[in-house]
């Protein structure tokens, strides 16, 4: 499944970053690396974007961007 399908409160693990170009590179730079634990904290009040926690910091990204991250639930 992809990151945008995860619900708030769910914990997952990154499998792959399928996005390419600037989005893919930004995700990689921010630490979206296979094996990383990731937790969806919340949706924004208007559902999009989402906030996630990984490695001790919080990042918000749009659903369209989260689609570029392959995850599995743990």
């Amino acid at each position, binding site marked *: 499944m992809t990151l945008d399908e995860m619900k708030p409160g769910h914990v997952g693990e990154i499998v792959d970053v399928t996005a390419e170009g600037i989005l893919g590179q930004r995700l*990689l730079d921010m630490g979206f690396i296979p094996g990383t634990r990731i937790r969806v904290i919340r949706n924004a009040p208007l559902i999009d*974007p989402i906030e996630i926690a990984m490695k001790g*910091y919080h990042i918000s990204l749009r659903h369209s961007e989260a689609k570029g991250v392959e995850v599995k639930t743990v």
Partner: protein
Amino acid sequence: MSEKSAKILVAVAGQPNSGKSTIFNMLTGARQHVANYPGVTVEKKTGSYSLNEEKVELVDLPGTYSLTSYTQEERIARDFLLNEGPSVVIDVLDASNLERNLYLTFQLSEMGIPPVISLNMMDVAEGRGINIDIEKLGRHLGASVVPTVGNKGKGKDGLKEAVRATSQGGQSNPFRLDYGEELEIHLSFLEKKLSEDTTLSTLYPLRWLAVKLMENDAEAQRLVREKATNANKILNFVVEKRKDYTTAYKKAPEKAIAQMRHQAAQGIVEACITREKEIKPSLTDRIDQVVLNRFLGPCILVATIYAIYELAIVQGYNITPYTWPLLAWTRDPIASILPSEGFIVDPFFRSMPLWVIDGAIAVLNYIPIFLILFSLIAILEDTGYMARMAFILDRVFRYFGLHGQSVLPMVIGGLYVGGCAIPGVIATRAMKDEKARMATIMVVPLMNCLAKIPFYILMIGLFFGAYKGIAMFFIATITIIIALAVAKILSLTILRRKESAPFILEMPAYHLPTVQGVLRRCLERTWLFVKKIITIVIVVAVIVYVLIYFPGISNDRESWNQNQADQTQQSFFEKMGKDNPYASLFAGDGLLSFASYWDAYSKAKMGAKGKEGKEAMDQRFREKNLAFFTIIKKGNYELEGKLINDEDAKKVYTAYKKLDKTRNRLRREHREETIVSGYMGRAGRFIEPFTRWAGFNWRVNIALMSSFAAKENSVATLGGIYQSPPGEKEGVLEERMREEEKGWTALHVLAIMLFMAMYPPCIPTLLMVRLETGSTKWMLFATFYPIVLGLIISILVFTGGSLLGLSGLQAMIGFYVLALIFLVAMGLIKREPEFS
């Protein structure tokens, strides 16, 4: 000079939210200089400090997570390190977020510049129970590591000493990231290939270049293409190696490289960090549960925006009456050294400089607003709430090609009623998404700035008096609707090819801002604004002045005026009586000096408060010129306890009163005639056949055109054209307009109001647009598209409304509904795929 006074160039790098700017401020103190990197709009801060007679020059690089060539900021940071050759780079790390921060550190060290690590926010890390073995970290990285707390000034001396030592001794054991056997084989082949090129090997660190080429970095490829003697061979070799790797490991090399960096960072963190306690929800998490709550979040956001508006715009505006006298006070000394007034026509070198000064003062008057506003923005940025605002609002704004971060600039520009586009445009600086940023810059001036308000009030008073509230609501919200639609159109058309960035936004932990940090930023930005006003606005004001008042009226008319002036003066002398003992006072320049005495007295009288104030004022004027004073008091005054009644003085008073009235009328008529026959007046009449479709006659055309220098002028110019006697209130102007424009209906007024709502930005704003977009073309676009848009809307409302026989209110509601439908339609247009 001794060699000791050599300069050391040091770059300061770090990820966003690492407290980089606090370290920069801590080291340099007040010795800072802000400019832009050449050719781009990214701010470049430089500063310096001295240590043991050595001058250290610091350059603050943009905060970046990485050093790819995808974003402007990363390219700038990278180019600086490559081309300017700093002797040391201070790498600021967030100690509480070490792993991700090291990701940048690795890339910096690949560039071959000896690093000094500023392990910042140690207090935050300690608070979270993170213990870092500093010595071990230093050994791992092959660099000096200095623990710092930037906003408390801790670690300053240590950092300076480390910079000194590193700049002299270099890096004894430079850190080299091992990318693993699979990648290293390719990297070493590539590096060898690159070393065969004699130019490349002298210009760039080859290991770095090899890694970048392996990452498929466009800029690195460009460097090879430009500098290498056999570029194609090298680039083909790169393609081959990348392909080899991808087929062998089913993975793009850039992914593997990023992964190895993160793994290495993880390894170092595990070796150097011990955590005392279990991670429990931090204070930030608890605050966010409220601030980002689905229901409370938007409420808090609205409250925050309202507070900013109230504190900066409303309260800031309330301060201006107190600061205004300070500005006006600078006008008088200048006025006094200029040539003195004429009877009807003032000399050019009096009226032009005063016009320019008045224009500058009108804008400088907003300084209190700016100071408060910029402080509040700095607080929002420093606390971390800015990222939350973007998080909450992104969804709404994204539909229109904007960004969650667009909201603040728009609020400042006057999202509801009353703002200022200048700081609004400056506030877009924080936006990373270039496309959305450009769209925001273009629509911020459509918001309702403070200077448009008096004009609206005048117009609403003219024909919408019965439903003022509705009309004001209409004008306040229609601008938002139009601005959003415009933003969408721009982003679908001319902005289509602009660089867009992923939203991906770090939500930093909340911080308490420091007074010093906030003040510094606030003063910096205000100063930037003032500097611009002083330099360029003046030039433009002169041009506008010339357009309005030149070429002047014909010689015949001038001599007719002179004739009138002579007659007026003659009848003045007749009225006071030929043998009046005061007559001699008015010979030659006497009349004009009495006129300025009279004006000064009337002005002082308005300003004087209480009985004592009035007496002191009288005393002053009595001392200045006793004879004039006697006249002004109609001959009735007290002298040494006796009441004096001077009939001759009274006669002069009555005669002068009449003269004054005639003179004012002549001056007004002359001014109106000059404006009408001036370049702008001619243009106003020339375009009248066209603007009639929008309901504007030439008088309105002139008033609108002259508002270009500053919208504050609009009401004043109308006042001039409709001959409202000076000093009288706007209400009177309304009546005069109604009298003169008998043919006007509410539709005329509605069309004019809408045109004013779309009015092009004032000159200071345009300068900011020029500065923030870095392009004159965009500035010109920002000038002309609102004119076209405003005309289309006005024609639609006026001509359309007239044809349908709508009343003003009907047209208003009709247009509103139409605009809303259009907006929704625009919002529904699918955005193009953001990133290919």
